[in-house]
């Protein structure tokens, strides 16, 4: 009889990523969805104030994303090596180039007025769609068992999480358009529906909190807010916290999965 493990030692190496990476997933996702909102709001004739704020959130998120990713590198001074090659088969490479394009276009969208700004906003929205979903591909297409098992749901879950956080940020800025409540509700409903596909890490408080704050709680609060407007801000706060916790929980789940000798 031979054993099916080597002294129960794990086969895989856990992710070396620290807090900056899941926080970037959160910030970049929210910024990406905000850029889509800005374009959608402008094309459908929503208030210019909403469009301006959505563009600002996109640009602020893009500007924050860069330093977060650079800080996580083992050799931060070599961050430009990310743009040395383009490899479509590497989600990390696709992400680096997307963030570069997203950063440039969303910054231009707030810096320039008129036609130039509008063209930049469209480019920002297009790259924003990738920003809000590719991080799920980044985790799913790896050797980490729990991530790879959820490759078909992670990009959708992270996309929903991005929508929830972008809507929440605009609501917390004081915007009360029903569209934001509807988008927030749809995102919370999607996140609730994807709950069975979340990692079940025993005793993992973050994962549990992420489930509650991002899914059922904001969904119920948003329904209730149709009667009582004040609840929208509470729902927004819950969704924002849930969105951040979701990313933290998934990175932590990857570390736990890699340390498992029988994943």
């Amino acid at each position, binding site marked *: 009889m031979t054993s099916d493990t080597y002294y129960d030692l794990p086969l895989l*190496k856990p992710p070396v990523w620290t807090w900056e990476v899941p926080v970037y997933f959160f910030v970049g996702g929210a910024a990406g969805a905000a850029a889509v909102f800005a374009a959608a709001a402008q094309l459908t004739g929503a208030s210019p104030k909403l469009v301006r704020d959505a563009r600002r959130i996109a640009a602020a998120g893009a500007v924050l994303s860069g330093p977060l990713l650079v800080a996580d590198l*083992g050799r931060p001074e070599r961050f430009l090596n990310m743009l040395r090659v383009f490899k479509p088969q*590497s989600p990390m490479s696709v992400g680096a180039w997307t963030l570069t394009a997203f950063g440039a276009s969303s910054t231009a969208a707030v810096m320039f007025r008129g036609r130039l700004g509008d063209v930049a906003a469209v480019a920002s929205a297009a790259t924003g769609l990738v920003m809000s979903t590719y991080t799920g*591909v980044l985790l*799913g297409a790896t050797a980490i068992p729990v991530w790879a098992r959820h490759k078909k749901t992670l990009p959708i879950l992270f996309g929903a999480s*991005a929508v929830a956080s972008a809507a929440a940020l605009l609501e917390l800025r004081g915007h009360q358009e029903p569209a934001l409540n*509807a*988008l927030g509700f749809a995102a919370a409903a999607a996140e609730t529906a994807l709950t069975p596909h979340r990692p079940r890490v025993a005793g993992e408080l973050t994962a549990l909190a992420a489930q509650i704050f991002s899914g059922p709680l904001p969904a119920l609060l948003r329904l209730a807010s149709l009667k009582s407007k004040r609840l929208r801000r509470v729902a927004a706060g819950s969704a924002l916290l849930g969105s951040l916790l979701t990313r933290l929980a998934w990175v932590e789940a990857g570390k736990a999965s890699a340390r498992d000798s029988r994943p």
Partner: protein
Amino acid sequence: MTVTGFFTDSTLCIGCKACEVACKEWNDVPHDGFNWSGNSYDNTGALGHSTWRHVKFVELSPEIGRGGNAPGKMAWEFSSDVCKHCENAGCLEACPTGSIIRTDIGSVYVQPDICNGCGYCVVSCPFGVIDRREGDGRAFKCTFCYDRQKAGLEPACAKACPTGSILFGDLDALERVADQRIAQLHAMGMNDATIYNPKESSVGGTHAFFLVRGDPRAYNLPANPVMPTTHLKDAWRAAAIGAAAIAVGSFVAFALGGRK
């Protein structure tokens, strides 16, 4: 140049760790802690950023034909592990800087002057080999002694191996040597001897392959290693569905409820 490989024959390994020492000396690899594992004579545990050859001390239960052990005593198997230099390498495809390359001798090599320590190769290796070195910040693994090979020398570990357990040479020739060795061992009654070289998996075979006994998982070798790029299609399709839903949902929401 021809494609070279390692054939590591566990049945010849005596666990002397000369390969580990030779590797560390030649490549100037730092120590990775002086820890007691507390579970075996193996106090290193696994390959890592600063362990490029690692001798595993596999304990097998006694069985007639394993040889060399008194009844009731466990049987030793030693096996020198190393980066597999995969035919389809997860780390190489994942590397966003182009630091990890395929060399002219078919090996997978990390260019230390390019690596920026993003860590994506670490989660993309199905064998858990490559890792980021704290303090240095870059990812490291076996170089297959590219410098020695270019100078016409064999890798340091193979040179130091006193029993011929680590064989180095032309990959195709080594595979024939391995087949002969398996036939020889089977003829001797060692029927559990097998070659570990996952050619049927998405990794598509490895340039460093092994002769082990019984279940390869007892040697911490995965039964079916999966190349992470095989997940790309499903994951990007999901991302496209998500992106389409966000785009359409946003336009519909703002068209219907974009005003207060």
